[in-house]
């Protein structure tokens, strides 16, 4: 073992992998642009803007828009308190992070031309890439 790294943040560095992760958890329809406005469930415009937006009609009946604002560190999610509690039974961000992590593993595997072995034990997903 030569190096050990831990990534706990809810920031998504890579746009392409973020879009793939959103598709994996069932949100394939996104709007992309620069400083797009976000709207609440009643159609009210919210103060935040984002570069990637899931419009509320594709999220849920009572949901607000979900956005991802581009920052120097990556894409930061903008999710209302209501949607944090209700979207995917309150697991939206957790499931997105998990899906993004899996996309990262596949990207690393591709780049090193390796093979992957995936194992699931309870809540832990272990993927070994050999090359």
């Amino acid at each position, binding site marked *: 073992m030569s190096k050990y790294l831990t990534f706990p943040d809810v920031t998504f560095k890579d746009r392409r992998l973020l879009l793939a992760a959103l598709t994996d958890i069932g949100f394939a329809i996104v709007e992309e642009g620069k400083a797009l406005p976000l709207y609440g469930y009643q159609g009210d415009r919210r103060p935040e803007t984002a570069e990637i937006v899931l419009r509320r009609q594709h999220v849920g009946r009572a949901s607000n828009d979900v956005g991802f604002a581009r920052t120097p560190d990556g894409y930061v999610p903008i999710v209302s308190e209501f949607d944090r509690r209700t979207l995917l039974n309150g697991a939206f961000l957790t499931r997105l992070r998990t899906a993004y992590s*899996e996309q990262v593993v596949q990207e690393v595997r591709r780049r090193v031309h390796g093979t992957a072995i995936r194992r699931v034990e309870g809540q832990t997903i272990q993927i070994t890439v050999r090359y």
Partner: protein
Amino acid sequence: MPEIQFTIDSASGELQLHLKGIAGPACDDVAKLAKELLGQPAAEQTTAEYHLRTQVRPQVQTRRS
């Protein structure tokens, strides 16, 4: 054979990464790729293997005539 072991906690989405069997700076290339996709890690620890350097020993063959 070099290997990268990824551990994803699906309860939190947290990802941990172990780079195994990659001695020295070659390890940094993979770490750099991971950081490119994941951002800066909250924790980063190098182990003894990281500091190993490849040693090249000259081989001398003697011929008997």
